[in-house]
């Protein structure tokens, strides 16, 4: 139960073979298929895109479309000169992490119990299925009535958006655990708690992570939509305020920030997954 990824013995050979593979392709199909080739193409196309955008945008009204140079100015202004982006970012990420973290803990627990105890599954399954099917942003007005226009509203929305995918996937993972492995625990005289910690949870881990990945994207949508529609705050609030004043260049900054946050969180999740499941070779084969 305490695997050290550094000592992961399968990592090295797999990565070596992946490298060998790309090298092989490179010799057959030329420069475009090497690592440097790919990055050269990416950078060149990016520069072309930016230049074209700059040329086009300088011909139209600033309120409609902002050129990259103006966006860069806005980035500098919002991150360094007045730094308002950081406050908004902290607000949004704070709500996201708190609600999402709570959703994971509660979702895994409920999913675990539903997967282990059939009666509980029969009782709760209809509610879980229907609430999972409902796009959580439809609940915003109701949540406003219940929680008012305050931080709790976002917390509740993020939680609701995240908890159901986690429940459903955890339950599926728990029920999917190999019965032959459960036999091993039973002949070893494991208690229910030991069965859960040594067989059920590790066995359900890939499912739980799949649920968490879905939950993360749902939760992110939840935060931003709540901030744009109900409480005008955080990154979502920033977008709305800039949009209302047609400050198009500024508008791009929180959008970019959301993208960066989303990518960073997904990457962090992937790292965590690799750390917690070093035996799982799918990661190694994807090639870091």
């Amino acid at each position, binding site marked *: 139960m305490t695997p050290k990824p550094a000592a992961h013995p399968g990592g090295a050979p797999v990565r070596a073979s992946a490298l060998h593979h790309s090298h092989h392709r490179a010799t057959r199909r030329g420069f475009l298929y090497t690592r440097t080739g790919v990055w050269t193409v990416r950078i060149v196309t990016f520069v072309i895109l930016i230049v074209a955008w700059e040329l086009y945008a300088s011909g139209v009204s600033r309120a409609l479309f902002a050129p990259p140079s103006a966006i860069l100015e806005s980035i500098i202004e919002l991150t360094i000169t007045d730094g308002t982006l950081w406050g908004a970012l902290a607000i949004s990420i704070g709500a996201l992490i708190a609600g999402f973290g709570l959703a994971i803990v509660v979702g895994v627990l409920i999913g675990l119990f539903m997967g282990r105890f059939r009666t509980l599954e029969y009782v709760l399954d209809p509610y879980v299925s229907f609430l999972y099917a409902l796009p959580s942003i439809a609940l915003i007005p109701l949540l406003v009535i219940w929680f008012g226009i305050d931080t709790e509203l976002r917390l509740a929305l993020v939680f609701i958006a995240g908890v159901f995918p986690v429940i459903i996937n955890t339950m599926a993972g728990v029920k999917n655990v190999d019965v032959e492995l459960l036999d*091993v625990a039973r002949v070893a005289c494991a208690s229910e708690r030991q069965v859960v910690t040594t067989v059920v949870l590790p066995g359900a881990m890939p499912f739980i992570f799949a649920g968490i990945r879905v939950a993360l994207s749902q939760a992110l949508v939840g935060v931003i939509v709540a901030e744009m529609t109900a409480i005008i705050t955080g990154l979502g609030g920033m977008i709305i305020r800039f949009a209302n004043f047609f400050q198009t260049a500024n508008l791009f900054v929180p959008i970019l920030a959301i993208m960066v946050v989303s990518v960073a969180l997904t990457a962090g999740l992937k790292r965590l997954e690799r750390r917690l499941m070093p035996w799982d070779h799918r990661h190694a084969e994807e090639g870091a």
Partner: protein
Amino acid sequence: MLDIQHVSKSFGRVAQPVLDDFSLTAAEGEFVSLIGPSGCGKTTLLRIVAGLLPATSGDVTVAGVPSVGPSRDKAVVFQHFNLFPWRTTLANAAYGLEIQNVPKQEREERAMRWLRMLGLEKYAHHYPGEISGGMRQRVGIARALAIEPKLLLMDEPFGALDALTREHLQGELQKIAEQTSLTILFVTHSIDEAVYLSDRIVVMGTHPGRIIREFAVDLRRPRYDYNFRAEPEYAQIRGEIWGMLERELAEDEERSDAAEDTTPMETPA
């Protein structure tokens, strides 16, 4: 040591029992093999003895104690190894001791002794996905032996291995059986394997599962030291069991002319 008295087992509403009045005893240190046609209830019997499945009627006693559920003096080696993919070789082998709350250092030392004996010390920190089938089953054996059981139950443990690896592990199992006072109940499809390893072979018939006959194997031990297949007794036992199983299969076909449920089941849930 092991005493199975009048055990019967039926599943659900199916009229015919899978096991019918099955009785078998094994003395301490004895190696008993169960051989029989597919679907005759060998796995079912083993699971009842292991305490994974309740018998419909009858009693199982292990070391004088009624055996109704899993207990620490019994260990199982499974046909499909059943290693935890998320545990290294060492952690898999130490699993039973971990469940018994043996402190980490002690359980790793004890598990390591068996891994060393089975030639696995170099692979102690590998995951099951990184070692060969033969090694995996050795881990399965180490895991069973690490809790130092009195009774070892093995359900076709070498069935999924290639001939060479199988022969090698049979030799290792024999050595372990010699060095310990383990009582072993061993399910197999292979007459050769049964003769090689056993003190006694129990031949089972099907529909319902029952004992047809028992054979004592008096071939000199250790049997990995000489070509036991050249002994006249080997050919004789082999021939008798072979004929018996063929007759049983033919009779069973007649009996089940009306019935259609002869599909074997690998792993009953």
